């Protein structure tokens, strides 16, 4: 499993290259199994890290152009995903919540940071 971008990121972070390799394999498996984005807490659970460590590793891959940071908006009452946006500006354009049948205010929602693939390495066909 490799791509020029991924190799560059590992070379720039030699002390955590092995961890990045494990994370890369995890992301690839997640995408292969139909997930469209990677959630830090799930990556942490699968790799035996804490949320903060997983987030930092995912940010490193995002900084290297392999992933893109996105935001999942959840209904605060039901926990259902209402929208996924890639720009914080779009957080103000919240769609109608069908389960509650109302337009929630931003304070009534939960925002989760996730990471979507941004490189051929992490696509279904890779």
């Amino acid at each position, binding site marked *: 499993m490799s791509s020029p971008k991924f190799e560059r990121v590992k070379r720039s972070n030699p002390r955590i290259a092995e961890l990045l390799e494990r994370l890369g394999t995890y992301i690839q498996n*997640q995408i292969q*199994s139909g*997930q469209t984005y990677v*959630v830090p807490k*799930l990556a*942490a*659970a699968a790799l035996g890290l804490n*949320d*903060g460590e997983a987030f930092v590793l995912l940010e490193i891959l995002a900084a290297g152009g392999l992933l893109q940071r996105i935001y999942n908006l959840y209904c605060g009452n039901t926990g259902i995903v209402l929208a996924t946006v890639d720009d914080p500006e779009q957080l103000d354009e919240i769609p109608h919540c069908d389960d509650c049948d109302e337009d929630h205010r931003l*304070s009534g929602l939960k925002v989760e940071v996730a990471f979507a693939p941004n490189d051929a390495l992490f696509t279904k066909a890779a």
Partner: protein
Amino acid sequence: MANPGNSREEIRARIKPVLDNVAVDGLRAWLKSIALPSAAYSRAAITDLVSNQIAGKQLAEDALAEALIGFEEASDMRIYLFRMEDLPSGKPERWLPTRLVKAGFALADSRIFAGEKAKPMSPVYARLEGGLLRVKWAEQQQRSKMNERGDGVVLTPVFKRVVLIADFMDGIAELRLNPAERIHAYEDAGGRMTAEAYYQAYFDKAADLLGCRLAPVDLRSVVRALVEEENPRVARIHIDDHTNQSNYKTKTTGPRADVRDSPDWQLAYTKSGNTWAWDAQSFYWLPKVSSGFLTREVFTHINAEEGFIKVNADCSDKEVTHVISQIRTREAK
């Protein structure tokens, strides 16, 4: 507590206003933990019982005051655990007193009741002993609810207590806060009065007082450890709430049992439990494996997503201190 009269009636009149603020279940559990009779199931009955015990010299009034301060500092709390990073160098006895005085505290020899302090972040006391700092703030917030006719809002003043316990030996700070009411003095960046703004204001206050960064302790690893712990089980799992690798959230609630005894839960856990992200779990800590610290099952809700532990309104300081110490020993360092 002052001791002006020793008849049963005088004692009763003196302690009743204070006991009225403490849950009956909690008082009963506390009496049981100090090996005193506790068979009273209403507020009036337990007030009589405690008055009799003081009048009969079975219970010292000072011990009661100490216990009630403990209830004030442990009941109905959201508890946040932090690792203290980049603390000022040297022993806290050297650098901390100046910071405490600047923050409006006078160093005290003993804990005291908060009283009816209304201003936001009113200092109550600070106590530094053996590498352990204990600080209490108090304030008044407003509870709002609709009136009986449904055409107006009734505001009720509610006193809030916030307690910071900093363990300099282990580098851990514990911040206990009564949950926020609707109306208080804290606003977010958008000018809205939110509960998060209230919690954040105290996180900032605590970090400022300690002169360090406060890094939240990861509670998911604590939940994982508690779920895995089987022989013996230290807690009964009442609600399991996790997210699987496909990002499906699953919530399992048990009756008076443990969700780990559910065959369906066991099947799923055996197959993929090692990759679940533990989100929010409710536990009843079991007395039989508490080395005598608990005399009843004690409820805690661990919200690993938001990073806090919630304890009920009838908990004594001894119970909460035991539970937090159990959580701390299971934290992945």
